[in-house]
């Protein structure tokens, strides 16, 4: 999984005037494959489905790379738009409530972290689980995709102001869910 801000330097090369060739695709793949997978598994809640969506997103992007219009969005935004469509299609096909990923590995990984961080992340996980899918999806796109507001708008297929409004509302609700959980804990 790439670190925050790491993708920015890699994307800088992709955002240039040059064509979206094989090298650019490879660079984008390396810098985003973990993020796409993380977004898909967080949204779908199942590893096989997330892997299918991840593979599908890169395959579609590769086939559509010649149609990529830099004026209408960055390759990263295109990639996450494709991944989002694939994930929503998967959800629609299954019509199944996405459930939380088995977090054993996460828990195991977090053993070494500070107790405070573990508790905070547990709260965030639970709050995310209580969010509506529409709100959760925006937060996941924003944080996993590491998209700017403009890129987020492109991925969602809406205007930038609408995307900002949706993101802000989702964050407010996430805050409310966290506060509720905090109050329950205090009580």
């Amino acid at each position, binding site marked *: 999984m790439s670190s925050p801000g790491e993708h920015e330097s890699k994307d800088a090369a992709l955002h240039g005037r040059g064509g979206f060739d094989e090298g650019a695709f490879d660079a984008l*793949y390396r810098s985003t494959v973990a993020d796409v997978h993380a977004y898909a598994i967080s949204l779908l809640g199942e*590893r096989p489905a997330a892997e299918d969506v991840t593979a599908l997103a890169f395959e579609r992007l590769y086939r559509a790379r010649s*149609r990529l219009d830099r004026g209408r969005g960055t390759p990263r935004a295109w990639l996450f738009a494709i991944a989002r469509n694939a994930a929503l299609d998967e959800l629609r096909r299954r019509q199944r409530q996405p459930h939380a990923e*088995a977090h054993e590995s996460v828990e195991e990984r977090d053993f070494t972290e500070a107790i*405070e961080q573990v508790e905070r992340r547990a709260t965030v996980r639970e709050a995310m689980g209580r969010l*509506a899918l*529409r709100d959760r999806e925006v937060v996941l796109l924003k944080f996993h995709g590491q998209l700017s507001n403009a890129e987020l708008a492109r991925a969602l*297929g809406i205007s930038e102001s609408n995307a900002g409004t949706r993101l802000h509302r989702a964050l407010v609700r996430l805050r409310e869910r966290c506060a509720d959980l905090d109050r329950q804990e205090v009580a």
Partner: protein
Amino acid sequence: MRIIPFPDRGRTGSDETVLAELEAALSGGAEGPRAESWRELREDVRSLASPMAPGFERALERRIAETRAHSDPLRSGPRRVGRGLGSLRGHRRLVVALASGLAILLVAGLIVRPWSRGASPPEAGPASLPAARELRGSARGAESEPAVRASSAPAKSATTSSNAPNAPSAPSVSSATEAPDRVQQRAASISLGASSSEVQAVADGVARVATSAGGFVQSSHVQVQQGGSSGAELTLNIPSAKLDAVLASLGQLAPLRSESQSLQDITDSYEAARRQLADVNAERQALLRALSAASTQGQIDSLRERLSGVSHAIAQAHVALQTLSRRAGNSEVEVSVLGDRSTSSEGFTLHRGLHDAGKVLLVTLTVLLIAAAVLGPLALLIAATLGGRRAFRRYRRERILDSH
């Protein structure tokens, strides 16, 4: 107690302010506890997802490599067609432009094809005039023949015609069928081509030729229409002796499109009329002699009455003979001046060049207009269908988000 340093806690602000702060914090452009808390939240959310399985990563790389192999024409020969279509899909604008061009060419072909057969709608009317005239001439000849036979004097007739491109010199019936001791009636029709702007001048020239030859214009009809079809119809009456010269002069006024001449032998009719006149004259002389020898008043009155009838018959015979003489001495020439467009191709001038260029432009615009009329609604229909399909797919996807 769980410690949640949520960034926006206890703070009110507009969407833009919060989003700008979030953007600055996530991009690393802001420092401080609030920016740090935004970044912690991002890491918290990102940490919720399980990492990729190592096996999946390798499988995904293989899968993408296969996709590349199937999309690469150098690595997969049989899929070159698919690759070509894929590259065409990549150049959607080029494909649309090519399709539009082909459609316009198709429409242009459908429009131009009937005109290219040499019977374009604007030219069909004037071009058919000579043929119609010849048909009328034939019909007239057929009508006149029984009239001649009714006088028990079989008439002989001959008609020759030519079209200008195949006959550089005007045809003449005189050399082949004209006999010095015969009385013959000649007629001719001639078609001249001119541009619409030249029709009036050519018609004036036709009239001048007729009068200079000692003839006159029996009837004329000149139509000059700006931007439309123009033409002139003139009927000349000229001395038969000058028919050939007149036809030659007419052929010099404008390009000759077609010409036809007809000859009808009226010698028998003429001789019959002449004999009729001689007979009644002889009868009158006999009656006069008888009158001079008459002795009684009754004989005198009877002879005078018969002389009166004979005098009337003499006048009728004289008129008939004069009519036949005029028919033999004068020829009727029908002249058509066709103001059609094909004439402009004969000889190049700047004016005709500009005229042709304007017409080409007009036809091009017409073709484009018709093509737009055909393709416009079709494109709108296709765009509406594609847009509706896309909107429906998006609606179904978005509905999933609300159902959970």
